[in-house]
């Protein structure tokens, strides 16, 4: 297997850099196009190998193309992420120190919550506290203006980029999905033994089972099983709510 970068790889990398994050089917199309344009060997199921070649060359720069799953729709996404926080990568941020502080506090709130959400009210309170300490009044107002009513959670890209950081910093406070073993910000939880699953993972695991049972303790699974393979499937929820993503402080926008 070739480990040299070709123009096909470079084009793929440039386009992915400009998007930041890309859905699986879009990435596959891009893979095909890049190979076609630059006459590079192409096999439709070898996207991950293709990406590995790029990743080998990205290693010295602490960057990586990572593959992850959206907690919303279970779809695969590819994102270019930073692996290390250095003096240099800190310069990438478009946000002020205070905005970043607010983001960190919001992330805290989301992660320790039961359901993986922080309400706008909650965030306003956090901004208020910051306001007392260091945020200038104008700054805080700006943030509040942009904050619409609803529930906030972490965007797929943020989770992908910060997974390592979150797992090591929050340790026992966060859950891992029992099915795919990745970080789970939102999950369905067994009320008996406490294991959790991503909603799409639960959907796949329990698919078409009339009486779903916890894979760990075998108790009846008390939650509504999300439907998969339907683009307009409703996610099970307590109260109806809007969903908005909070993007990562380390987000690269190209």
């Amino acid at each position, binding site marked *: 297997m070739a480990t040299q970068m070709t123009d096909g790889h470079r084009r793929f990398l440039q*386009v992915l850099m*400009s998007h930041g994050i890309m859905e699986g089917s879009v990435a596959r199309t891009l893979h095909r196009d890049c190979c076609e344009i630059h006459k590079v060997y192409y096999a439709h199921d070898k996207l991950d190998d293709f990406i590995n070649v790029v990743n080998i060359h990205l290693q010295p720069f602490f960057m990586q193309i990572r593959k992850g799953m959206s907690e919303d729709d279970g779809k695969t996404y590819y994102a270019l992420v930073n692996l290390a926080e250095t*003096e240099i990568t800190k*310069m990438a941020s478009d946000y*002020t120190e205070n905005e970043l502080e607010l983001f960190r506090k919001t992330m805290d709130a989301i992660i320790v919550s039961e359901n993986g959400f922080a309400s706008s009210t909650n965030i306003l309170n956090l901004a208020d506290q910051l306001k007392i300490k260091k945020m200038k009044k104008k700054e805080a107002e700006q943030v509040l203006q942009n904050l619409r009513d609803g529930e906030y959670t972490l965007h797929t890209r943020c989770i992908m980029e910060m997974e390592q950081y979150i797992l090591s910093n929050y340790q026992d406070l966060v859950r891992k999905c029992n099915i795919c073993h990745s970080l789970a910000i939102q999950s369905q939880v067994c009320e008996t033994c406490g294991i959790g699953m991503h909603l799409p993972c639960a959907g796949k695991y329990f698919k078409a089972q009339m009486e779903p049972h916890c894979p760990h303790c075998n108790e009846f699974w008390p939650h509504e099983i999300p439907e998969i393979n339907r683009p307009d499937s409703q996610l099970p929820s307590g109260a109806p709510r809007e969903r908005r993503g909070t993007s990562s402080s380390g987000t690269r926008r190209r």
Partner: protein
Amino acid sequence: MAQKRRSKGPGPAQGEDAAADEDSAPTQGAGQVQRSLERLSPAQVDQKVSELVQYLLVKDQKKIPIKRADILKNVIKDYKSVYSEIIKRAGRNLQQVFGMQLVEIDAKNHIYILVSNLPRLEGENLKQDDCTAKLGLLTVILSFLFMKGNAAKESAVWEMLRRLRVDPGYLEYNRIPHTDPPEFEFQWGARAARETSKMQILRFVAKIQSKDPKAWSTQYNEAAAEEAAVGGLSQDTSTPGDTGGPSQGARRRNW
């Protein structure tokens, strides 16, 4: 056309707008660099190269040209003695891994941008965002300037520009000598010259007006000459006006 800088909190970033008093990379003979290199461990130099690559990518993302002074202050620091080697290797890495080139657009003040090496495609699936509209408008302005004979009076362009904050490097804004009251004119900037070409712009204009690019003979010749100089694709240099533009004479057209 200054960019509004956001305060980045404590740290070296504060000083970036400072005058270029730090831009003192010593002129380095090859022997001198070699001796300095030998004193440092390969790992240390590699580390600096890697940091520089990251720095350049991060800075270029914001489309602000990168000053050498900032590179020296924020990345090179104590490794000034091997600056030329570090930047050479960083440029190589950028080419090999990212297909991008480090280009000096201002040789006097040592200012750099990153440009893609890869052939630009039509309808390429780069991200469409708020910047896309700006770039579209910028292309219109660049076309306008080109068709007006490479420069246009401020008043002619101002209507278009009033609400646009153009990223630095794309347009030059200079005073016209011997004018009173002083008048200014716009010309293509160094970044524009690098990121597109006169032929591409001419084709763009031709497409909008549904004409053959050769209909504008002056511009066509100029664009062809630029291509030939850059060593681009060979174009047939047909004589002016033989492909059916209505005005046969080589006068500039009003656009």
